[in-house]
């Protein structure tokens, strides 16, 4: 491996409003290396990549390519400098063939009047000769997600790039497909292309990358050769943060009831998760952790009948919970708070009162089915008071509230049906610190009152501070449970990402790994 520096980042800072996304970050990429970036969500990895790709401009600091100082003002300019970026979300035209998708930019810039399909097809075949046997004539929508990802990579390769950025490319891939991708990455690196590889999965980093840089809270913490360190070292530097928020006191041993509210057994979905079994006890707050895409939300939505083709058994307070739709679930007192508040958690344009009553308008309606405005506002007022909701007028639209108060409206909506069990998916995302600890207090109070509480969160400190027990999901299965003293960030991260070693060891005989 040559040790020549192809990309040098020097003291780059970038802030968005009050948030310091990057703070005097240095970074170095060498010719022909595969360089992993690790860090929690919000650590600054994506911001740095967006700066390298010209999507954002740094507030201060310099970028050097091959020793030459450069200004990268747009993605198009980055492309000219030989930087290819494969984004996490796929941006392809689904109704168009693979070949046309790959060469779309060239088609756009072309001066010839007619399309030369056979030439496109031939060139696409050349590109795929080194990648994967995808037929360039297929429509993109007929490809699997992983093959679409490969088309994105092929698209970046045709730009003749010297630096290739891959942002969590394996998130949508199966193990075998990921191995194919790694093989390709290695052959690209061998031909002198430098690769920046963003991933949360330690195994992938340690099996396939040359060096790893860890980011935390907008700072570049450390860069090491993977041969010099262990996955645990990386995880430790990723989460080396003190929990500084105050959480309500946890369940005491005396409060443990041992009474099961929800029992889930061998719960599986066609592709998202399999053989999930767990119990929720009265009085506790159960946390669910895992990487994005591991299947956390899918399990909750599956239980609530919101999506998925599920099999398995679920009991609510000893009675089988069979739901054909979410309506059945609500009627049994099981509700789900969406992680996407603005998308499907609240009706932004509707009033606070009609949002709160939305789960069961019947409750505030007369026998003839006419909504009683008095009952409706009364319900919203009393729940609002209970949750310390701050609002101008109960008839104002929810969009007039702050993020934290919008979330309280969403929670009030859940409480309006006197639920027995609540799934809360990212309940404090985009919520300010004050409202956040209020929401935590509300959840603890509900648990004390006997309501089953399940919190799904990407924020480890929140899970550790709030929950009595945390289930960790990895790739659709429960990889472990943490409680009491075992409930540490290191432990949970380990269960969420590293424990994969065992699985991979079992697949070694397939011979896909070097």
């Amino acid at each position, binding site marked *: 491996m040559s040790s020549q520096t192809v990309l040098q980042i020097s003291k780059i800072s970038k802030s968005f409003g009050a948030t310091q996304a990057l703070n005097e970050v240095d970074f170095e990429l060498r010719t022909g290396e595969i360089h992993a970036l690790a860090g929690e969500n919000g650590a600054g990895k994506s911001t740095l990549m967006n700066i390298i790709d010209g999507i954002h401009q740094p507030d201060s600091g310099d970028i050097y390519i091959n020793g030459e100082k450069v200004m990268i003002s747009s*993605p*198009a300019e980055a492309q000219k400098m030989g930087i290819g970026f494969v984004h996490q979300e796929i*941006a*392809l*035209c*689904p*109704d*168009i063939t693979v070949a*046309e*998708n790959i060469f*779309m*930019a060239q*088609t*756009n*810039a*072309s001066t*010839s*009047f*007619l*399309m030369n399909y056979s030439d496109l097809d031939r060139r696409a075949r050349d590109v795929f000769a080194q990648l*994967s*046997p995808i*037929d360039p004539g297929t429509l993109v*929508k*007929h490809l699997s997600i992983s093959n679409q990802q490969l088309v994105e990579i092929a698209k970046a390769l045709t730009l003749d790039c010297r630096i290739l950025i891959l942002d969590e490319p394996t998130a949508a891939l199966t193990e075998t497909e990921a*191995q*194919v991708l790694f*093989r390709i990455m290695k052959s690209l690196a061998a031909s002198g292309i430098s690769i920046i590889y963003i991933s949360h999965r330690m195994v992938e980093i340690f099996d396939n990358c040359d060096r790893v840089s860890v980011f935390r809270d907008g700072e570049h913490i450390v860069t090491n050769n993977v041969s010099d360190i262990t996955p645990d070292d990386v995880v430790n530097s990723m989460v080396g943060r003190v929990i500084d928020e105050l959480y309500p006191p946890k369940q005491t041993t005396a409060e443990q009831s041992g009474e099961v509210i929800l029992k889930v057994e061998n719960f599986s979905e066609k592709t998202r998760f399999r053989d999930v079994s767990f119990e929720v006890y009265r009085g506790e707050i159960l946390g669910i952790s895992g990487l994005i895409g591991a299947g956390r939300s899918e399990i909750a939505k599956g239980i609530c009948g919101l999506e998925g083709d599920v099999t398995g058994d679920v009991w609510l307070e000893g009675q089988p919970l069979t739901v054909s739709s979410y309506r059945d679930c609500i009627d049994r007192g099981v509700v789900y708070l969406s992680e996407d508040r603005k998308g499907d958690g609240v009706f932004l344009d509707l009033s606070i009162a009609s949002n709160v009553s939305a789960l069961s308008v019947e409750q505030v309606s007369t026998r003839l089915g006419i909504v009683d405005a008095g009952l409706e506002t009364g319900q919203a007022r009393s729940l609002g008071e209970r949750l310390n909701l701050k609002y101008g007028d109960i008839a104002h639209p929810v969009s007039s509230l702050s993020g934290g108060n919008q979330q309280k409206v969403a929670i009030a909506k859940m409480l309006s049906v006197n639920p027995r069990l609540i799934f809360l998916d990212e309940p404090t995302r985009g919520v300010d610190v004050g409202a956040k600890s209020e929401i935590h207090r509300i959840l603890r109070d509900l648990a004390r009152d006997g309501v089953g509480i399940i919190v799904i969160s990407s924020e480890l400190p929140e899970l550790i501070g709030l929950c009595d027990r945390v289930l960790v999901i990895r790739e659709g299965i429960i990889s472990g449970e943490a409680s009491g003293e075992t409930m540490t960030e290191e432990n949970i991260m380990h269960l969420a990402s590293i424990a994969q070693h065992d699985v991979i060891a079992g697949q070694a005989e*397939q*011979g*896909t790994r*070097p």
Partner: protein
Amino acid sequence: MTSTETTLNNETNGFQNSGLSSKLRRIAGMRETGLILIILALFVVMSFASPYFLTWVNMRAMTMAFAVEGIIVVGMTILLISGGIDLSVGSVVTFAMVLAGWLFLNGVDPWLASAIAIAACAGIGMAMGYCVTRIGLHHFIVSLAFMVIARGACLLITQGRPLGLYTLPEEFKFIGQGSLGVIPFVIIVFVVVVVAFDFLLRRSTVFRKVFYTGSNEKAAAYSGIRTKKVIFLSTVLCSTLCGVGGVIYMARFASAPPTFGLGMELNVIAAAVIGGASLQGGTGTIFGAILGAVLLSVVTSSLALLDVSVYWQDIIRGSILLAAVSFDHYLNKKKN
């Protein structure tokens, strides 16, 4: 390592071997093939059911019935592919007829009057395109508004009465009424427009951008395509073709009734969608859309020949649209 390589090689060989058969399968799977088969089946059944069906006169009448509308179907299909839709086509066609007719009655040369009318329709397209791409309104709402506005303009110009244009010169009427040999001129125009645009849409780099934009505007924009311009021009093209259609109608009927073309937009959209265009954009072919128009026309004509009450016809046409779209949805789901 070895096992992976073997699998890869196998798959590669698989592609080469299945080259021809996959091509055949692709043709068999195409929307057009299915439509042609259905139309042929209808022909066979109808030629037995009615001796009149397979006559030159009936064929000619059927073709005339959808020829001019077919030109508008071309514009609509392109607009649908770009991700847009135009509800104003019926009104804009009539606007062209009425404006050109009114200008002619006021002493303007009919050719010049027609050119002005077509330009005015292009202007309507520009106004709609502006609302969509600059102001950011939805095609549906914008074209709904212009549907009403253009219809209102027709009524205003004519004061609600049909314009009689019997005095149009013969050489102008030829556009709509004349024949080259046994083939009506209208049909020749129709075939030329269809063949030209079908070719352009399949082969020209310019029109491929319409597909990219409609399929995923963001992906297209990331490839440097000026998607707003593509949408704007598709809108203008559709309205301009409506202008052309309106002028041909005027020459054919030698009159300009302000209530002409009511409900035409539904027929035109139905034809395009039956032919494989998607309301989500990104897919559609001119050939398919024309086959859709042919199918609707053959069905209408068959029902008339079979003495089915005219009141049943809309119900049946609507059901055909629903069946075609459901079938397509089902196929797509299966493929995924």
